[in-house]
C-alpha cells in the first residue's frame, strides 16, 4: 500500500500521522493467512482534513463513526483506512433485522453437539481486524447493546454460555451511518459515546475533479469539469427536494464514465448510471433536463477521452 502512502503525502497529509501509521504497521503486521482480507482499494478517498482526523482517532485506539449523507465516501474511507493500516477487514452490513446472533455468533448443531458458530464481530476481534459496521443505524439499538463492551474500555466480548474474548489491541471498529435513509434511526447515547464521530463532508468540486482524473487519466478536462458541475447541480436539486437523492450517486457518475470509455454514448451511459436510478418517470425527466444543460447526449469516446 505504498501507493496510498505516496498519495497521502502528495495530498499534504500530516507527516507525523503517517509515521504513526508506519509504526502501527511495523508493530502489527498482518499474518500470512490474513493478507487476503486486507483490502486493495479501487478508489482513494480525497479530503486531507478528513484523512487526518480519521488517522488521529484510529492511532489513539478509538473507534470511528463516519456520519454523513449519501455519496460522501464513507465506505471508501473505511476501506482506505483498513488498507493503509494493513489490517484484515470484516464488513458487516447492518439491516433492520440485525441481531446479536448475527453479529457475535449463534448456536448451531454440528452433528454431535450444540456449538458456537462465531459471527464477524467475534472473528474481527479475535484476529485484530478492522470491523466496518456499515449503516449501523439501520439496526435496532437493543441489537447493538451486545457491542457495548467491545467498543468501550473493556474491549471484550462475553457470550453467555461460552468464553469471554478480549479484543486484540490492533482491533478497530469503523461504523458508517446515513441520516436520511428510510428506516434509519438515531443511535442511542450509550453507543454513540463509544465512537468518535467524524462528520463526513460532501465531496468538494476540486476533490471530485482529482478523483475522476486519477481514475480516468485520459478524460478531457473540459468534460470532466462539466461532469463535476453536473454532480453539484444534481446535489442542489436533491437538497431542494425537487428530486429524491436516488440519482445523486457518485458511484453512478464514475460508472457512467467507465461506460463511455467502453464506447457507449454519453446519453446512454448517463441514462443507465444516473437517470434510471430514479424509478419515477417525472423525476427522470427533471434529471435529464439537468444533464442536457451540461452534457450533450451524443458524445462518443473520442469526445470524452484524449486519444
Amino acid at each position, binding site marked *: 500500500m505504498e501507493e496510498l502512502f505516496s498519495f497521502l503525502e502528495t495530498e499534504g497529509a500530516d507527516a507525523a500521522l503517517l509515521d504513526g501509521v508506519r509504526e502501527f504497521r511495523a508493530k502489527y503486521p498482518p499474518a500470512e493467512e490474513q493478507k487476503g482480507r486486507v483490502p486493495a482499494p479501487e478508489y482513494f478517498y480525497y479530503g486531507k482534513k478528513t484523512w487526518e482526523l480519521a488517522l488521529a482517532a484510529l492511532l489513539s485506539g478509538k473507534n470511528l463513526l463516519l456520519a454523513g449523507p449519501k455519496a460522501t465516501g464513507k465506505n471508501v474511507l473505511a476501506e482506505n483506512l483498513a488498507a493503509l493500516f494493513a489490517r484484515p477487514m470484516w464488513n458487516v452490513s447492518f439491516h433492520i433485522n440485525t441481531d446479536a446472533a448475527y453479529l457475535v455468533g449463534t448456536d448451531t448443531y454440528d452433528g454431535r453437539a450444540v456449538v458456537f458458530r462465531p459471527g464477524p464481530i467475534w472473528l474481527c476481534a479475535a484476529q485484530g481486524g478492522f470491523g466496518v459496521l456499515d449503516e449501523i443505524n439501520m439496526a435496532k439499538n437493543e441489537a447493538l447493546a451486545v457491542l457495548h463492551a467491545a467498543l468501550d474500555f473493556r474491549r471484550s466480548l462475553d457470550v453467555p454460555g461460552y468464553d469471554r474474548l478480549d479484543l486484540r489491541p490492533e482491533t478497530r471498529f469503523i461504523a458508517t451511518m446515513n441520516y436520511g435513509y428510510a428506516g434509519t434511526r438515531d443511535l442511542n447515547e450509550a453507543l454513540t459515546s463509544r465512537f468518535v464521530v467524524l462528520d463526513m463532508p460532501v465531496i468538494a468540486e476540486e476533490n471530485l475533479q482529482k478523483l475522476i482524473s486519477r481514475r480516468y487519466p485520459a478524460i478531457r478536462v473540459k468534460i470532466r469539469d462539466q461532469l463535476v458541475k453536473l454532480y453539484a447541480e444534481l446535489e442542489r436539486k436533491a437538497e431542494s427536494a425537487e428530486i429524491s437523492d436516488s440519482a445523486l450517486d457518485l458511484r453512478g457518475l464514475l460508472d457512467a464514465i467507465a461506460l463511455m470509455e467502453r464506447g457507449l454514448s454519453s446519453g446512454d451511459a448517463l441514462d443507465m448510471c444516473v437517470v434510471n436510478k430514479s424509478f419515477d418517470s*417525472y423525476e427522470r425527466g427533471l434529471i435529464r433536463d439537468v444533464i442536457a*444543460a451540461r452534457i450533450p447526449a451524443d458524445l462518443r469516446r473520442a469526445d470524452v477521452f484524449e486519444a
Partner: protein
Amino acid sequence: MIKKRVSDSARRARNIIWNAAGRYDFDPPFLAYFPNGAPDDYFDMVIGLTDKWLELPRIWDFFARYGRDHRAEEFDEFLWLGIENCVFEKELAERPVLARLRRERAERFYRMNQALSRQQMEMQSMPVYTQHEARWAEVLGRRALLLPREKRMAEALRFPGTLDTDGVLAAMEAFLREFFRYVPGDADREPEKPGALARLLLRHEHRRHDRLLVRAGTGEGDHPRAVHQRHWGMGRSVGPTEEDTAYVRAVFGPCLLTGKELRALENELCIGNDEGCRLWLAGRGGAAEDCADRDAAEVRRSAARQRERNEAFLREHAAQAQGSVRRLSTRIDTILSSYLRRMPEPARAGRVRPEAAYRLPVLNDARVFLRGGEEVESELCVDLLLDASQSRMNVQEILSTEAYIIAKSLEKVRIPVRVCAFRSLRCHTVLEVLKDWKEKGCEGVLRYFAGGWNRDALALEAIGRLDGGAAARDKKRILLVLTDASPNDSTPFAASDTLLPQEYEGAAAVKAAEDAVRGLRAEGLRVGAVFHGSTAHLESVHQIYGHAYVRIQKAAQLAQGVSDLLLMLLRETRTD
C-alpha cells in the same frame, strides 16, 4: 414565447430555471413555453441565467413598468431576446453546451414555423417574428432578409455580455424609446389593502351571514361563491337552534351516531370553552336531488362538483400520485419492518428452544432453534384528519390528492386507516367520515371539500373519543392531522369572564388546540401534524403539536415528510 405564470408543466420549467440560477429559493416571475405547452428549456435556462448573472427583481420591475400597455407581450418578447444574448455571452465559458443548445433552439424555431398553419402565422406579431428570425438565422449562420429598421432593431437587441444589470436596464429602456417611442412609467401600484377598521367590518359582516363557502369557479379559486345560510347570531348566549341542526343534517346527511351516543359525546366534550357547541358525525351526504332544503341542495351540488374536480386533478397527476404512493408505502414498509416485532420461527441456528431440545437426539430434528422470521405483527392503525375549513378552499384538489396518497400508501402496507374531514358551522363541529376503517379503496377521500370554520380543539377531542372500530382494536392509534394551524370559529369561546364574547381565534384558539392535543397524548394517542399553512402560523403548529409535525410545501416532499413523521411517532410508541 415567454409567459407570465402559466400552470401546465410549470414544475419542470421552474426546475430548469432554478438549476440554471443555481438556487431554489425564489419563485420565477416568468416561465417559458412552446405553443404546444411544453417547456421551452432553452429560454427557461435563459431566465435562470438572468437570475444568476443579473438582478432578476430589478429586471422584473422593469417588465412590470409597462405591464398595462397593450403591447406588453410584444415588448417582453423583444427584451428577452436582448437579455438572451447578454446572458449567453456571460455563461458560455462556464457552460460550453450552451452554444449547442442555442443552435438546437434556433433549429426548433424553423421547424416549428414550418408546421404552423397560415392562420397561426397570421396570429403572430410580425415584428416579433422578424426579430426571432434575425436572431436564430444568425445563430445558424443563415441570412435573414431584413429592412433597415429591422436590422437596427436586431443590432440593438444584441445586448453584450459585458453589461451589468444597470447596463441591461439602460439598453432595454433605450430600445423601447428608440423603436416604439415608449418610456415605461411607474410600476402598477397594487390596490391598497383595507385598513384595520375595514377588516373588522368585513369580518363582522361575514360573521353575520356565516356562509359555507364552496368554490364554484374555474378551479383556480378565483370565484368563491357563497351559499346563503342564516346565522344564528353573534351573542354567545344563543345556542344552535333546531333549524341549524336541520341545516347541518340536510347538508351532511344523518348523524352516524345514535341520539344517545351523540348526547353522551356532547355532554363529555361540549363543555368549558365549547359549551353550547354541538357535534355531528357524518357519512355520505347523498345527492342534491334528495334534499328538500334549497340552500343545502346547492351545497351538495357544489360538493359534487368539487369531487369531480378532485377526481380530475388526481387523473391529471396520476403518474406523480402513483409514484408518491410507491415511495411512501415503501418507506412506511421499511420503517414498520424495523419497528415492529418479527414473529420468531424455528430454524437450525439461533436461540435454543429448551422445550424442543429433545427432538435433536430423538427425532434427529435440528430445527430446535428460534430466529426472527419474515412475518411481523401489525399493531398500528392511523386516523387521518383533514382541516376542511374555508381557508383550504384554494388547495382542495391538492389536499384531497395528498390525503388520497397517504391513505393509499397506508392501505398498501395493510395498516387500517380512517380519513375524516372536519369543519364547523352554525355552532356544529362536523366530522365527515370520508373513508372508514373497513372500507376498501380510498376514492371516498376525493369527496373532500372546503367550507366553514375550524374549531380544531373540539374536532381533535371528538376524533379522539370516536371508537377505533374492530379494525383498530388492540392496535396503537396514530392521528395525523393535515392542518394550517390557524383555528377559528364564528362561535366564540363560551367560558369567558369578559363582558364581550371572546372570539374563537388567535392565541386563545391555538392554546385550546394545544390543550386538546396534550389531552389526546395523555390518553395514549400519538398525534402528529402535516402542516400546509403559511410561515406566519409556524409558531402555532409548533405550539399545538410540539416537534411532531412536518411542513409540506410541495407534493414532492410528501413521501419523505410523512414517513419522517410516522417514524417520529413510532419512536414514541416504542418508548411506551
